[in-house]
């Protein structure tokens, strides 16, 4: 009884968590929250992810880019957060992530339309990234003229440059 009295002086230290909400500390690295509207599909997060929780692949028709995040594999290092240029993926304070029975609930998926090259008709970037680049360059320089070579993949651009210069030398330096 003495011991019980002594223990009662200390009070109750157990947190009432499952019955009342709980907020973790300010610097807690919780679930990475994904915002599809802000995402460009540039793939910086997939390159930075050390545990391959974020993956990028094309679908079988090669007209869509599929971005996938698996919370089951995520190690909450925050590298995706660090490299994201638009803030589409951010570590949040969310900690309630347990999933019952269905493993698919751990996944987030986004599909992006791919931009096809004007010449070889092969996809080389997402449409969003292409439009975003143009918008940023236009906002920096309003009098900018659109590049005639835009919409061509880097490989075709390389070939074109080589062909042009070969023609130039063949003509003896005349245009």
């Amino acid at each position: 009884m003495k011991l019980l009295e002594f223990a009662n002086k200390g009070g109750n230290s157990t947190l009432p968590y499952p019955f009342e909400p709980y907020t973790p500390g300010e610097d807690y690295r919780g679930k990475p929250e994904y915002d599809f509207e802000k995402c460009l599909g540039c793939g910086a997060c997939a390159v930075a992810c050390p545990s391959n929780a974020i993956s990028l692949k094309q679908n079988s028709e090669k007209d869509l880019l599929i971005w996938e995040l698996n919370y089951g594999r995520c190690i909450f290092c925050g590298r995706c957060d660090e490299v994201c240029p638009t803030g589409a993926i951010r570590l949040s304070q969310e900690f309630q992530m347990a999933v019952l029975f269905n493993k698919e609930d751990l996944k987030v998926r986004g599909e992006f339309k791919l931009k096809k090259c004007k010449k070889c008709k092969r996809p080389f970037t997402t449409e969003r990234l292409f439009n975003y680049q143009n918008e940023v360059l236009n906002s920096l320089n309003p009098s900018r003229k659109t590049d005639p070579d835009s919409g061509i993949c880097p490989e075709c651009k390389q070939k074109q440059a080589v062909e042009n210069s070969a023609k130039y030398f063949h003509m003896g330096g005349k245009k």
Partner: protein
Amino acid sequence: MKPLYEIPEEISRENTVEKKLKHLASIKRSFFVYRVDAGSCNGCDIEIFSVISPWWDPERLGFKLVASPRHADILVCTGSVTRMMRYPLIRAYEAMPDPKIVVAVGACGCTGGIFHDTYATWSGIDSHIPVDMFIPGCPPHPATILDGFGVALGILQQKLKHQSYTDDSGKPPAPVKSIFKNLQVERDLNINCRELMGYIHGRKLYDRCMQILTHATKPDDISEVREGVENFIKQEEDPRYGECMRVLYNGVYLNWMDKFYGLKKAGKELYQI
């Protein structure tokens, strides 16, 4: 391909989802939990031990650790199943009474985590035995583990749902607009914030910089911005933010103002804090 471990028919017959749910709902005693470490780094195990401390106390919900799988209702597995721990894991699973409820804790237990493609692991508990509950995290916060117990008991709702976005219009987000009519100032500020305080605190610092600059009537009005920075340093409780703000003001902001308007050398020193 033949599965690595075929579950015997008498076990799979007794372990349907309905029987497990019925067992969870109709149990009239504590849940006995047995813990298997199938080759984890001990991070998840330490978090499980912190869960059974009085601070979180799952015993008030009726979860009790036992020393033998023959007494257990719930098997809590951690680790990415190394080659040597595969057989003990299967033995513990088979020794449990039916119906067997299996919980995979941690990123390694759920999918193999960062070790998913090494040659020494089988990547994930569910590569061998059927798993009923996944608790992700590396390691999971004690509250996450307790959340898993709460979801299993039906006290809490499962929060994570499969998200799929398929309607891509090709419309990008709007680009950031500069308040100085030169995006390089913002870029310079952002880079220096990250260099000084890292990306998480640096982002907070950058937001506070922008607050001060937008609060002034004109962002290139030096005396007003200086007043704002001085007020910020006085009011901020965390001295790191104040000091970094001072460095940013003296270094980045005044340099750019010098480039824009050509402050004299004496004038530049005059404005410094």
